């Protein structure tokens, strides 16, 4: 730690955003990076703790946070960039969209504002690309082993990169038309500009990773054939089965899963030619987003940019407190009210809302009936009860379901590889090895939907396991 009392001298400075008016008019990223002098001050706040909870407790990829903070403070960006890439394949992604559990567990967060870790990460990697420090790292020798990766989300890409660098011949299969999985089509452009993704994919290509898009493994290519062609296969297909809303009226045509909605807008932004009839637009509509998580928030931001009239966000759980409550003490991930940039852009957030029924005219929904609920703790855990006389109904033009995901898609792939599933319906693994020989799996497909940073970590770990197995 170069600055012993930096934390005391400088206050945390949040990353500024473009103004709401400006940003809701486009799909560009909204953060305005801090100037160098300020970012170095922010890095100086790091205390280089004897136990860096950020690294040892918060960060799933075990970023050496105190070290890169110190390098940034010293202006040694290149070393910061190296140390960052030693643990994280895609810091430009986590630097943008990670909810930063590191900051939640930062020891400064005990009694003041944590270090601005995520943005420091962002700045390091952006500087790295700018300066040309991030170059392909080619394996000096090839092993001659062939590895297939199924699914090109963060887990798949991390595994692919690690395996290619270890000298294996890696092919990534993607069912969509473009590489990136959830990164490509799940995250709105205003949070992750897709050029950022391309920049990294170029590196992977240069390192020898081959990509096959528009290939549905299990349909276009059989599991048996795959097993013949490759020495190892890694399934990183995500947990794409969405949680549904089992209420009367669910079947109306203007009730969509969030992921379909978001994917379409991303495709449009990417220049895809979509039949106007199929376009889901929120323009001038009353939009209700059911589910108050990150995906819900992304829907809100997208709907706002499409020109929605009113946007509502319904959450079945109660409103979390502003400050860290006793039930999630430091260094745990705090159950607090989080207001995203999309929320700031305008929506009404309601808590303890249970959607009872959707009704409409013809095939289109135009009314939502809900009720207020309350939660109480019992011997069996938290119990929900409807509050009498709180039923309401409201007009609605578009309903988006952002209720999370249940498990991996149980498609033909699972059957063809004969993969055992766990209780939750995800692929069962033991140290990334599935029940089927040669076949490995990692990421959301095994652990259920989770953070990108977890997926990257899982991809790296799976690569390690595969590499070891291949030897």
């Amino acid at each position, binding site marked *: 730690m170069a600055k*012993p*009392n930096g*934390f*005391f001298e400088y206050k945390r400075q949040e990353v500024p955003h473009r103004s709401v008016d400006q940003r809701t008019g486009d799909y560009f990223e909204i953060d305005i990076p801090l100037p160098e002098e300020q970012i170095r001050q922010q890095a100086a706040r790091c*205390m*280089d*703790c*004897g*136990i*860096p*909870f950020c*690294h*040892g*407790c918060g960060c799933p990829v*075990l970023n*050496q946070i*105190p*070290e890169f903070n110190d390098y940034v403070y*010293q202006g*040694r960006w290149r*070393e910061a960039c*190296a*140390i960052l*890439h*030693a643990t994280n394949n895609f810091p430009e992604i986590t630097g943008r969209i990670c909810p930063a559990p590191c900051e939640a*567990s930062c*020891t*400064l967060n*005990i*009694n*003041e504002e944590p270090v601005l870790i995520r943005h420091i990460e962002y700045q390091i990697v952006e500087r790295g690309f700018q300066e040309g420090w991030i170059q392909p*790292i080619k*394996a*000096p020798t090839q092993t001659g082993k062939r590895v297939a990766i199924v699914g090109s989300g963060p887990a798949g890409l991390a595994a692919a990169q690690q395996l290619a*660098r*270890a000298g294996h011949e890696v092919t990534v299969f993607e069912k969509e038309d473009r590489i990136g999985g959830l990164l490509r089509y799940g995250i709105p452009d205003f949070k992750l500009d897709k050029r950022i993704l391309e920049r990294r994919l170029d590196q992977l290509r240069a390192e020898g990773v081959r990509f096959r898009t528009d290939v549905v493994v299990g349909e276009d290519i059989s599991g048996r054939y795959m097993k013949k062609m490759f020495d190892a296969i890694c399934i990183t297909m995500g947990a794409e089965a969405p949680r549904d809303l089992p209420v009367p009226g669910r079947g109306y045509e203007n009730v969509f899963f969030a992921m379909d909605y978001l994917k379409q807008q991303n495709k449009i932004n990417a220049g895809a030619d979509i039949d106007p009839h199929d376009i889901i637009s929120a323009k001038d509509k009353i939009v209700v987003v059911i589910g108050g998580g990150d995906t819900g928030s992304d829907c809100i931001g997208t709907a706002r940019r499409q020109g929605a009239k009113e946007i509502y966000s319904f959450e079945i759980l109660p409103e979390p407190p502003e400050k860290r409550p*006793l039930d999630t*003490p*430091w*260094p*745990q991930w705090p159950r607090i009210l989080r207001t995203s940039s999309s929320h700031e852009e305008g929506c009404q957030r309601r808590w303890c809302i249970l959607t009872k029924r959707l009704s409409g005219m013809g095939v289109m929904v135009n009314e939502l009936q809900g009720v207020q609920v309350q939660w109480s703790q019992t011997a069996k855990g938290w119990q929900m009860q409807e509050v009498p006389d709180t039923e309401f109904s409201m007009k609605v033009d578009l309903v988006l379901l952002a209720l999370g995901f249940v498990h991996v898609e149980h498609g033909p792939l699972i059957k063809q590889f004969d993969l055992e599933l766990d209780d939750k319906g995800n692929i069962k693994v033991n140290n990334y090895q599935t029940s089927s020989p040669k076949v490995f799996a990692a990421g959301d497909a095994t652990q259920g939907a989770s953070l990108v940073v977890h997926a990257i970590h899982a991809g790296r770990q799976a690569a390690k396991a595969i590499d070891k197995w291949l030897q």
Partner: protein
Amino acid sequence: MKTADQKNTGLYESRREHDACGIGAVVNISGRREHRIIELGKEILLNLQHRGAAGSDEATVDGAGILFQIPDEFFRQEAQRLQFSLPPADRYGLAMLFAPKDDQLRKKCEQILENAIIHYGMEVIGYRDVPGRPDCLGDLARAVEPRIRQLFIDGSGKKGASLEKLLFLSRKRAEKIVSQNLGPEAADFYIPSMSSRTICYKGMFLAPQLFGYYPDLSDERMVSGLAIVHQRYSTNTFPNWRLAQPFRCIGHNGEINTLSGNINRMRAHEMNLACADLGNDLSDLKPVIAEGLSDSASFDNVLELLIQAGRSLPHAIMMMIPEAFGPSYHISADKRAFYEYHAAIMEPWDGPAAMVFTDGRLVGGTLDRNGLRPARYIVTTDGLVILASEVGVIEFPPKQIQQKGRLQPGKMFLVDTREGRIVLDNEIKSKIARQKPYRRWLEQNRIELRGLFHISRAAPADPNTISQRLRIFGYTREELRMIQAPMAVNAQEPVGSMGTDTPLAALSDKSKPLFNYFKQLFAQVTNPPIDPLREGLVMSLMSFVGKQRNLLDETPAHCRQLKLPHPILTDEDVERLKSVQRGDFQVASIPILFDANRGDAAASLRDGLDQMLNAAVKEIQAGASLIIISDRQASPTQAPIPSLLATAALHQGLLRKKLRAEAGIVIESGEPREVMHFALLCGYGANAVNPYLAYEALNELQRRGDINPEIDPEQLVENYIAAVKKGILKTMSKMGISTLRSYHGAQLFEALGLNQEVIDNYFTGTSSRVGGIGLDVIAREAITRHQQAYSLRTLAQVDIDYGGEYHFRSDGERHLWNPQTVANLQLAARYNDKQAYQKFSQQINEQTQRLCTLRGLFEFVPGKSVPLEQVEPIEEIVKRFFTGAMSHGSISKEAHETMAIAMNRLGGKSNTGEGGEDPDRYTPLENGDSLNCAIKQVASGRFGVTINYLSHANTLQIKMAQGAKPGEGGQLPGHKVTEEIARLRHSTPGVTLISPPPHHDIYSIEDLAQLIYDLKCSNPGVIVSVKLVSEVGVGTIAAGVAKGNADEVLISGHDGGTGASPLSSIKHAGVPWELGLAETQQTLVLNNLRDRIKVQVDGQIKTGRDVVIGALLGAEHFGFGTTALVTLGCVLLRKCHEGNCSVGIGTQNPQLRKRFAGKPEHLQQYLTFVAQEVRQIMAELGFRKFEEMVGQVERLSCKKAVEHWKGKGLDFSAIFTPPDTTDGRALRCLRPQTDPLKEHLDWKILEKSRAALEQKQNTAFQMPIRNVNRTVGTILSNHIVKQYGAQGLPDETLEITFTGTAGQSFGAFLAPGITLRIIGDGNDYLGKGLSGGRIIVQTPTDSIFEPHENIIVGNTLLYGATSGEVFINGLAGERFGVRNSGATAVVEGLGDHGCEYMTGGTVVILGQTGRNFAAGMSGGLAYVLDEHQLFDTLCNLDMVDLENVWQTEDKNLLYDLIGRHYRWTNSKRAWYILDNWPEMVGRFVKVMPIDYRKSLQRLKDREQRETEFTPATEEVFHHG
């Protein structure tokens, strides 16, 4: 020869015994022989009794003896009575024999002796059975009483030195043959003396018993012109007659710390020994040092050899205990040359020592270079000299005393009875220094590096090579940035905080350097550590390297060696050395590599070592005087042998082949980089080290930007070397060793995790008590590093690993404190979350995966369980808990007080730490809570230790050492000394506070007993606890502590926390408490001392399981330090040393302190959980009462399932050895210590002072006093402050005048209102902790000597005084006013190290001072009468400036003080000065600490500014 009575069992090792003592000598200068000399010897012993100690059987003590001239007349008459006749006086020898009681065995022994006598051409005359009265002996002593006989030997016409030689040779021969032929059976056979000149009577006695036992000694015919006497205080109570002193030539008070090195060096010399005078065959003399002897006896063996081979007694003493001759000493060129020349021949026998010696004609005394033992002498008008550890042991009327003096550091004092005069140091030494042209010899022969021709600088290695090398040797990023870089930039070893919590090397999953398997030993109690910063002048890193020659001869060739100023060589140095090839000084290079790819790694490593040794032997036989072993050529196929292993193997191998003296060893290795590494290499035999990779790493760090590129690279290397040098000095000083020459090869380490084979083969003699890895794992670890270095790194991985030894990293070394344990513990404590506690305790206790501690490998032996409700309740168990000693200063007021409240609520104890305590805390709060710490610590800095503080304690804890930095002092930098802290510590805000490494009143075990006595006087009824740190031998020290009357002994683990310590100490000093505690328990029980002392333990204790293991190993009380802090919010930032704790604990910053969020309830909750866990385990094991568990070590066993690749070699049987208790001896404390205060003089004083105490009436009276009256005035002071509070009585209420000699600690902690006056003289520690009283020492008016030229008080006066006044009408000894923080003193002259570490008060010196005045003096003022204007050459100017006395303020103050001195003491010198004031005032020098001046200025400024409402604390904070 081990003692037959007590073998090594369990963790107890007899060689770890220590002793210290009282010594004395009486001599008629004229040599006149009379019985009075013996009688006076007796009187000395009787009056030194308190310096001895009694064992479990209080009639058996450690030994006493007397050595004197053979009274010819007495023995002639006795011979006649026995019907044989003696040759003329001085033509016969007399042997004193301790023989086995068994007649047959005795006869065998005697026969061997007789044969030896005949072998050397003498004849046996006859035996005399020495009458003895065993009824006066204690049981233990009587049980092993030998048969005591005297044998008369006819010198066959020989006399004088030649007869002495024959007697010596035949005695050595007999000893050797007895030991060889009869073995341990005949261990009782011992020859205390065998000479034609002197005889020694000794045994396991307390002084009066010596004279009761031997009626001979009371016989009027027993006449002698001289006698030396000795009273022993040993840590053990195992009866052993032979260990009593004096030995044949010496009586020794002190301890030789470098013994193992000295013995090894002596072995190396044996090969070359030759002495024509002793005949050609010296085989009878080898080994020179018999096995299993005490340090003093070994010393005596060598001294005797040197003398018999022809050196004079003083010459031999000067070789073995040389005085310091560094640049700070102004000594003659010839004398300096003498010492330097002898440095090439023999290393000092280093350690505190007061030595009295005699050869029957000369009687002398000498002190070690640092003067760490007291020795005072008087010369009487009738030609008698009395020398003893204390003055006043024999009373003389004042007018009979011609001179009073003391032995000075490094100085010798000699009485030549033949010439009939006292010979002074200068005369003796200059004569000896000039008996040979040593100076010329040295100039012509010594080789110096810079004299060798110059060589161009080697090309620096490229970054890739460097980074590969860094990997080969296992460097980590953490190390490079946290250790190497700071060393190179700051020329200092880096500092860290909190304790270590990583696994021992033998339990780590990582491959660890071999260095990590060793732990530094350190001095505690039995000898003092040295302050390498403030007292560095006595220390030296200089050494001679090369071929050593015959020890018994002196030639110019003896110094034909390479002289190195220090042992760290640069690359250029090595290049130069390698290119030297001269006829008489050749250098050979040998690789230390082994085949990295062979299947059997152990065999490969062993071969590598053998090849190295064979090559070295060959080179030496071909004439090499210097062997450079090097791992520079490591390659993909050749791995480096661990440098320590290579060095130790070569050193031991050459010793075994008797070639070690033939050549020096230099190691050129990439591995050593930390201070510990260099210390180990030197300690195991390297003469010099070239850490080439450490230098290259600095280049690389600078290239990478971790080191400022503007610093000159050569400066970096220089700084780095400077840091290493300081570190080595620090490591040596921890053990109390001053010179590298004696540290070299002294092996002052304990191995932890190495098996016996490795130890025996390469680290011979090192303690390794739990077994561990063998050569196979050592090889595997080296190969793992080597492979990692050459195998491909995963791409994008950083080239060097992080490490994680100091700071937690997920992929680094494991830590007991990690995110999960900290989070769970806080959750448990704050939210009363049982589950979280269970998780925490499970994580800590779950040992199979996380082997971090030794106890992790222990298992409980199941027993018949009992229902939980029958187990002692939580409320009782928590009373056994205490919190660690953390000062208010190292932690914030808020944290400190929170702990006190919590512990007081629970009925446990909190500890003040070393920083005093706010007296306001003695008053309970309104809600009934108390902030008063039950335990008040007394540490070496004595901060805030006043009579009031002591009187409010339940327990007084003497901190001898601290787990995180045993053997070291501490420092609170000025900027942390806020106004609040300064008030509590009785110092000045902003002035740096230094805690010295030693307690300056504890240089040995009898001194500790004295301090315990002082503390008991300060608060009668208080519990005194002594805090020790676990290391090999701690058990014997604990036994000494028990014998010194302490009530509790605390064994701290090496992993205890700290507010600031050098990282090398946090990591590498001390051992886990499991070992120390088990050893302590075993030793105490073995000595049958356990019943009178409680045993406590601390050091990373976290769970109920830890507590139960502690109890089963023998502890009754348990300390929680770091854990307590974690419950209060600590998250192990490890930033305490920076004072920037973000949770308000380790900080004094008011803004940060506000963030403190701990509550007493948190700590209470946690300790309740722990106690509950304890109960559960007790129930499972079947214990209802806690006390039933204590010491039940049978209930522990080793986990069977240890399958750790390194851990599986560990063997805990020594820890689990239950002591023999078949005689019903206790395993726990059952009774209080005996009350030592019964006979105290203060009870009489209290009687007589009633009017003063009860009505504050002015009272004055007179009393006689003797040296046996110790700590006078302290019980009285306790009574006063208890009644009147800290302010005591009004000044001059009570005035007591004593006549005679005061014992030690006169007026200790004296309270205000008391004036104590001695007419006569005083001993050591006068005015210790003076708390407002006044002490006057006045030379009797009828004395015939000049007061200012004679010593009238001893050493270490006013230690830790906080207020009050002292006036001394004469000279004082060393360390006057040490750590004075507020008292005023006037004295007429003093010895070395005056006003050391002073932080406040005023001292006026009206005469000479010794060297190193004002070392570490950060506050207060001193005025010195500098008559010769040379004071600046004696003063340590590091922290002070010297000024003239010209300001009126100063002049007035000085005039006033001298005036008062005159009024109180009638000093002639004061009168003279006042009488000639205008002239004299100009000769005074004012000593002004720089820090202090700044602070005074700040305070002054503040006064002005206070009107502007600036808070002072902030101001103080941002400066400094």
